[in-house]
């Protein structure tokens, strides 16, 4: 069962490569303005909240250590989790890939006889394309997080881990609600304005009837505790509580890396996550449950443990740390690349720096070869990460893999040719001097105001996206020879 192709779900079908998608995105000035404002706001909030704790670094260190130690013994903790959840009256399922997870959830919903489910925002179910799979089986999945609702009604894709509709302005959201809500249930009021308060009120009324009649809910999990079998979901709006409390059947899909050894470990993550994510001391609501409870909430609880490329990621001793991610999205908000391109350019539910390392590992580098290059390696993501994932280290590691997978073809890539040429030029001082002389002459012909805007021939692909400074009129070696002679 190894080597299962998980690419179709982690990477959106038909997505262009990152540079292509990014070119379009950066030309959209309104998108850039929305993103600049949004990421700027949330950066300030996060900094204030992280700065409020003088032991923030110690918390990060503990968070990173817990995640890394847990991953080194992942099988042990998963078996313990299975045992605890089962003892608490829940049912545990194992899904090797997206197709299997979708089949398990579909069959569980069908067993209830229901044809609709309410959903709590969940990255894992985005990743496996659960809504589409349920739709094929004739089951409607209603997203209940406000931003996910905006994305679903707008027939759109999420562009941020925490705020999936971050690319939409209030006017666009008003239009989507006005045009589409009626098809999905209770229509938007006629006099709907684009005030966020009014829009939230429209969503409240639209979703209320769905919550009150829902018999089945599907959620993700922020944490699952091995020693107690406790599952935790953090949220803000109360849609999570509605889904976790009102229906009769609850199906939770979680990546196998979300397990924590003990209940006490939550003390670290409940401090790190809200401050890193929404920039709050605590998010408005956190729900924790340990199996079904008599007379309170769902009678049936199913936990689906999802692999879908995670064990392949675990195998790579450099890439493994990526699985420590708690989906806070702090790395997106500090990333200069994300701020300019937005999330859609990454072609996956996981955008930004974490997406640039997670997507190629979950899907296989051959399915997302351009993503590890979607970074300036400035390292802001590493500084912001509450569990200290060294994203630049993993990016560089994956870049090497991306280049390696292209090696061995019959026609060498322009990059490989350029590297070969460089190896030749750098092999003797005389060849280097000759190459520098050629560069200086060529540069003088092509440069305008000290910048090479367009290089000839196959080098154009480089210069299309970059300005290259013109080579200096005199190389360092020539200067050295000249000035030393003068001084002698």
């Amino acid at each position, binding site marked *: 069962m190894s080597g299962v192709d998980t690419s179709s779900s982690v990477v959106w079908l038909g997505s262009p490569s990152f540079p292509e998608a990014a070119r379009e995105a950066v030309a959209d000035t309104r998108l850039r303005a929305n993103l600049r404002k949004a990421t700027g706001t949330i950066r300030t909030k996060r900094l204030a909240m992280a700065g409020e*704790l003088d032991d923030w670094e110690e918390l990060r260190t503990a968070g990173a250590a817990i995640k890394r130690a847990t991953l080194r013994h992942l099988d042990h903790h998963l078996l313990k989790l299975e045992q605890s959840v089962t003892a608490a009256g829940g049912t545990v399922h194992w899904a090797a890939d997206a197709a*299997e997870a979708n089949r398990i959830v579909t069959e569980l919903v069908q067993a209830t006889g229901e044809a609709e489910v309410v959903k709590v925002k969940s990255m894992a179910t985005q990743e496996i394309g659960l809504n589409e799979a349920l739709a094929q089986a004739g089951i409607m999945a209603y997203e209940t997080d406000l931003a996910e609702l905006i994305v679903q009604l707008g027939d759109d894709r999420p562009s941020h881990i925490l705020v999936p509709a971050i690319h939409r302005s209030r006017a666009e959201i008003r239009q989507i609600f006005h045009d589409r809500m009626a098809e999905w249930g209770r229509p938007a009021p006629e006099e709907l304005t684009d005030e966020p308060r009014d829009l939230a009120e429209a969503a409240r009324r639209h979703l209320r009837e769905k919550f009150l009649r829902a018999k089945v809910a599907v959620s993700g999990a922020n944490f699952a505790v091995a020693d107690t079998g406790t599952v935790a979901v953090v949220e803000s709006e109360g849609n999570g509580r509605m889904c*976790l409390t009102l229906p009769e059947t609850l199906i939770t899909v979680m990546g196998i890396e979300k397990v924590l050894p*003990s209940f006490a470990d939550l003390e670290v993550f*409940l401090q790190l996550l809200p401050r890193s994510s929404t920039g709050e001391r605590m998010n408005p609501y956190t*729900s924790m449950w340990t199996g079904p409870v008599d007379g309170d*909430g769902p009678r049936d609880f199913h936990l689906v443990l999802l692999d879908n490329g995670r064990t392949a990621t675990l195998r790579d001793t450099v890439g493994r740390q990526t699985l420590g991610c708690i989906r806070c999205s702090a790395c997106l908000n500090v990333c200069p690349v994300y701020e300019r391109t937005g999330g859609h350019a990454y072609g996956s539910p996981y955008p930004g720096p974490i997406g640039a390392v997670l997507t190629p590992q979950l899907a296989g580098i051959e399915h997302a070869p351009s993503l590890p290059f979607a970074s300036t390696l400035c390292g802001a993501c590493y500084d912001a990460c509450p569990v200290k994932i060294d994203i630049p280290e993993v990016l560089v590691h994956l870049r090497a893999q991306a280049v390696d997978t292209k090696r061995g073809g019959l026609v060498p890539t322009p990059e490989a040719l350029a590297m070969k040429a460089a190896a030749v030029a750098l092999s003797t001082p005389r060849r280097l001097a000759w190459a520098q002389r050629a560069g200086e002459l060529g540069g003088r012909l092509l440069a305008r105001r000290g910048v090479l805007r367009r290089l000839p021939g196959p080098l154009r692909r480089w210069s299309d996206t970059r300005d290259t400074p013109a080579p200096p009129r005199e190389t360092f070696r020539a200067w050295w020879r000249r000035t030393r002679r003068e001084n002698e």
Partner: protein
Amino acid sequence: MNSRNAILARIGAALADVPRTERYDAGAIPRDYRDSHAGVDVTALFAERAADYRATVTRTAHAPAAIAAALARRALAGLVVPDGFPAEWLPAELGLRRLADRPPLSVRELDAAGGVLTTCALAIAVTGTLVLDAGPGQGRRALSLLPDYHLCVVGADQIVGDVPEALRRLAPRRPLTFISGPSATSDIELERVEGVHGPRTLDIVIVDSNNPGTGGTA
């Protein structure tokens, strides 16, 4: 081979670099962070932080009067009072329709109820958080979710400093709900709006622990 065994086998193979003799050791995790970020006066800190999240906070030595005053500010259709709510905290006259969850109220009834009055399991000062565990005076989780107004009464002796202490005191087997202010969203242009699906208004009454009327909460 079923998927359970397949995944476990893949994990085993992926962790070939981990020495077989290595065991998971919780004791080896560096826990140099503070156990609490609260100062001495946790009650004042809790009041300040909960108010930061736009909850209306009242401190009192006399719970019934404070509860009556809070209710009087809101025009409620009715009030759900879960079983086990301390009688000594209840105002003699509620002045509005009182609902008990016995037999259990339907979701429609809860939706139309107007408000709910509960106790809590504990409160966390640093984060301004109430934690409910479905104990006496709190009822099942839906009670504090569907009504649009939630009034929560906290004994000052129930307030702990910070998250680690709270987790040590809580029983994981109980359904737990951490509440920090009214429900909120920042999904539209990151502008915070209070009140989406959960109660849009949260009032908190802190009852001074020297008051003989306290105690007996979950």
